[in-house]
């Protein structure tokens, strides 16, 4: 279900917690599973739950509670733009509008070629860098002017 490499990475997470508390590693494990699979299908969540000896619904609770898990398929690249107030005051909304218009999609939509999904994000703890956006959950991009957005999209498109 998951690659040996992912399982090894999950084991590293498990080792951070006392042996009888494997469930603590579920956030890390779901993240690793998502990195491998692109999104979290039910079978993937089920697999992770069993791997950690927890009820599948308990793992689903976690996967559906935290925003960065995708329990629906997403495009190859997920772009999450912060539009919260501090960012909005420095162009967060304008940056999001620019991307929408560039990609021809709205929030929570994926481009027809399956390359990009756009999401509206909440505060990322980087308000001083507004406009900020997150690429594929793990790469934060700061001070995103239209030029930088163009460059980013071009790089991702390669």
């Amino acid at each position: 279900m998951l690659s040996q490499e992912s399982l090894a990475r999950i084991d590293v997470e498990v080792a951070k917690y006392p042996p009888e508390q494997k469930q603590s590693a579920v956030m890390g494990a779901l993240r690793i599973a998502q990195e491998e699979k692109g999104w979290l299908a039910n079978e993937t969540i089920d697999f992770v739950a069993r791997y950690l000896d927890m009820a599948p619904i308990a793992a689903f609770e976690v996967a559906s509670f935290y925003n960065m898990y995708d329990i629906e398929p997403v495009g190859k690249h997920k772009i999450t733009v912060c539009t919260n107030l501090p960012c909005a005051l420095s162009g967060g909304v304008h940056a999001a509008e620019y991307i929408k218009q560039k990609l021809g999609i709205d929030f929570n939509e994926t481009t027809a070629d399956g390359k990009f999904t756009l999401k509206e994000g909440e505060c990322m703890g980087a308000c001083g860098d507004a406009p900020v956006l997150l690429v594929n959950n793990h790469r934060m991009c700061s001070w995103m002017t239209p030029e930088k957005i163009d460059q980013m999209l071009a790089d991702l498109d390669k």
Partner: protein
Amino acid sequence: MLEIEIDGKVIQVNDGSTVMDAATQAGSYVPHFCYHKKLSIAANCRMCLVQVEKAPKPLPACATPVTNGMKVWTHSEAAVKAQKGVMEFLLINHPLDCPICDQGGECQLQDLAVGYGDSSSRYQEEKRVVLNKNLGSLVATDMTRCINCTRCVRFTQEIAGEMELGQAFRGEHAEIMPFVEKTVDSELSGNIIDLCPVGALTSKPFRFSARTWEMSRRKSVSPHDSLGSNLIVQVKHDTVKRVLPLENEAINECWLSDKDRFAYEALGSDERLTKPMIRQGGEWQEVDWQTALEFVANGLKSTVREQGAQSVGALLSPHATLEELHLAQKLMRGLGSENIDSRLRQADFSGDASRSGAPWLGMPIAEVASLNRLLVVGSFLRKDHPLLAQRVRQAAKRGLRVSYVGPNAEDWLLPVRNRALVAPGKMLAELAGVVKALSLAVSKPVSGAIADYVAAVAISPAAQAIADDLAAGSSAAVWLGNLAAQHPQAASLQQLAQEIARLVDGRVGIIGEAANSVGAHVVGAVPGAGGRNVADMLDKPLAAYLVLGAEAEFDFADAVKTRTAFEQAGLVVSLGAFRSVAALDYADAMLPIAPFTETAGTFVNCEGRVQSFYGVVKPLGETRPGWKVLRVLGNLLGLDGFDFAKADEVCVEALGGSPEFVSERLGGLVDVPLSSQPAAEGKGFERVADIPLYFADPLVRRAPSLQKTKDAAAPLARMNAATAAASGVADGQLVRLRSAAGVVSLTARVDEAVADGCVRVAGAHQSTAGLGPLSGVISVEGL
């Protein structure tokens, strides 16, 4: 003790009490939804906010610990203001269409909204809609009504032992759901219907069939497992519409198993026998009671006259009432026969000679909570006795350590610390190993009679671990489950269980299969001196059988042998609520007798508690209460002492008119030489037979919604990977199983919860009846 003043009343409460506990004690009602006395505290609904002196804000009564000298107002202006505020929030997204809601009339939200809600809503936005979920055949959903109190989630986690429901997503999008596309399969699932304070979870079989105020509520007792759960049966127009728990802390607490709750559906089954029937010249005909009873009386009389009293016998279901069992044994004895038995699935009767008193649990049910060690021998505990397993589960959370010896290791959803997973044929030696290790651990010699046997066995690591664990406890019990009672060496197993209990100063008990297993013993529904037990009666067929409440192919230790014996008999009189298909072949008379809802009766449960009940509806068609039928039959046979006007009189006679009658007769210990007879002989694998909970008695077998659950799935041939490999079959493959008695075909399932060298094949099912005995050797062959 702490002192607290609630609404002006000063009371003392135990340390660790919450304000809610104190309010209950003081008689102040605090409105609430998420709080439930048997569940962990969530404090999420916020309905129970009360005013506490010096607290800057209202506090939830359910979660706030009492401190000494605390002053609380549950209905002050500030408290009510907070409660009303919460009520408004609860209602903004809740449909306000009580008239079309199945919960209408018994809804906590509706009740409280009357007192705390405003007539018009200030919420003008669109209401939330939540998709319904398929939870299976028993529980219906209307999730838009859910108030997210999480009682159902906590129930599955904490009481049922497996988290089958969760609260997924977050904030306003939070939804109660099972894991995607899963159903709720717990054998206790129906309790979430009772727990749901609104109409989000309701009974699927009952749905929209009546309003609560249209139904009368009558007390009854569950006729299924040996617990005797207390019931409220709800009736409309003389039909049972629904069954709910009647709270009894000593027995079922506030719960019911799904079997207790939903088996009532069988009462309206098409298979109900509604008229007496007799077979004459090979033809079945419906007759009136007079004709039928005369037919039966004449038949019995002429058999006794022609072939002697020893040629007739009675086979009585342990699910029958005390009154029925009493009159049936009295009738048989009146005819001069001691051939009476109610232990229909039992195989070993070698303990009978030494046994005195009725085998019972050996302790009150509620005392499970105070045990710290429990050894279970041969049981499918969770499915055989769902609520007893639930008690063990709760006790295990508080430190009870459970061990097990037997051929099965399916998940009981409670920690089993040590488990000796051995084939039935090795259970005796394994248990002897426990005795041996225990004797060393506690430095007490093994009793003389079994010392030699015990000395010769080796102590397995599992037996050693079980013994060490038992030796370290201070309050232990050893229970023999249904599988142990049905075991071909049952008496020997019991002998060793008794020895283990003796070595640890613990208690020993037999859980008991049926609602009246104990009662049947107490009233003598077992063979007397010179009488034949059930196995004997079937091995060497009798000329006439009186069969009460039992079906040849499902309720006996050996379906094939039973069937053959009945077919050979000159007269088989079958008394029961249903028209069994097989009985059409083997019976000569079928008399419709009332199920528990249509007759007065009494059950004695596994702890020896006598519980009487009355009929809650009129008998269906020409059905008659069993005790009345047997009374008339006694009279027609010209026997003395059959003049009863009421069921109570039968009960008084059966129980000797003394309150101590039952308790004086509890016992059931045996004193036997340990069996030298192997449990299974021949080449092949040992059969391990469970009696699945929804096949176990004639009622559940015919309850349609229960029959749609996972637990009612057709039996499989379960074996571990090694056994499967040895027999050359793969998981999912169709296999032929052959015993000395016959052949059946089933699908194989690889299941590591079955001991090596065994095949688990359920009993009490059409598809497996052809295998004959519940134990013994079978061969497996892939098809």
